[in-house]
């Protein structure tokens, strides 16, 4: 534990702008992700209200709002556990950091499990990615979001594993917690937009 240090948000090691390079890189990456998800959301809006003939199933006919609302709530709460993990590390609480990282990963897994269940239900109801352009746009948008959540879970579990093996995270690894946290919260805000535009707005 001797090599384990508290994370310092303002301890800039590799920087020329006053902000750690990796952190600035993460913000730049997240900024570019707006264009990525913006394209997918626009694609969905382009097709959501269109008629593709009889005999095909549309996403709106199959939405289970209570179920998706609970999934959204779970993902929102995972943002709370993520920020608590970051706070715990900043105050030197390594056990707390591990606990909250694991909790965040588990909540993310619940969200992914819900999405797998939803997709399975939709396919069983006859709506596949090739049913019509609206269904295709829906699966592309929510599927790519789910892929982002899955990558986030892998990063969270990696941090948990490293911390458990070493008995804690070093200061350099502590920055990784902040970066993964930024990524995780970004995935959350994208879902806030998707939940409203795709599921709730008629």
């Amino acid at each position: 534990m001797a090599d384990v240090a508290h994370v310092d948000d303002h301890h800039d090691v590799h920087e020329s702008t006053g902000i750690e390079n990796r952190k600035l890189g993460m913000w730049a990456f997240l900024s570019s992700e707006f264009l990525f998800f913006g394209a997918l959301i626009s694609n969905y809006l382009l097709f959501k209200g269109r008629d593709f003939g009889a005999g095909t199933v549309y996403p709106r006919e199959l939405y289970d709002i209570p179920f998706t609302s609970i999934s959204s709530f779970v993902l929102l709460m995972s943002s709370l556990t993520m920020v608590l993990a970051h706070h715990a590390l900043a105050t030197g609480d390594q056990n707390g950091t591990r606990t909250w990282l694991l909790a965040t990963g588990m909540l993310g897994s619940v969200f992914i499990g819900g999405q797998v269940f939803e997709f399975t239900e939709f396919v069983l109801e006859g709506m596949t990615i090739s049913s019509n352009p609206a269904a295709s746009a829906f699966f592309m948008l929510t599927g790519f979001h789910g892929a982002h959540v899955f990558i986030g879970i892998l990063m969270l579990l990696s941090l948990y594993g490293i911390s458990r093996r070493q008995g804690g995270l070093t200061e350099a690894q502590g920055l990784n917690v902040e970066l993964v946290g930024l990524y995780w919260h970004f995935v959350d805000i994208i879902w806030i937009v998707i939940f409203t535009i795709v599921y709730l707005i008629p």
Partner: protein
Amino acid sequence: MAEDHAAHHPTPRQYVNIAILLAVLTAIEVALFYVEQGVEEFTTNMASPLLILLAVLKFVIVVGYYMHLKYEKSLVKNFFVIGFVAALVLYAATLFALGIVSGVF
């Protein structure tokens, strides 16, 4: 250092309060969805703008307090805002040109 962190970011209790606020806003969103199912006049006039307003509020709260953008340097804020605004303008213009935006609101 811990004191430094505490001075710049919310406390755990404040984080929990923010989460409660987010949960309440989500509940209002879902309630609005069911209201719009039953009141057609409300649907066409009010529901969509209100839902968008609530989503924007949740978005700003998460970015500001959980991502700590409120406490970041202006360079970071600019990175984030430029990407967001660029995407918003690009796709809003595209959807407007295709006549889709009027169908959303």
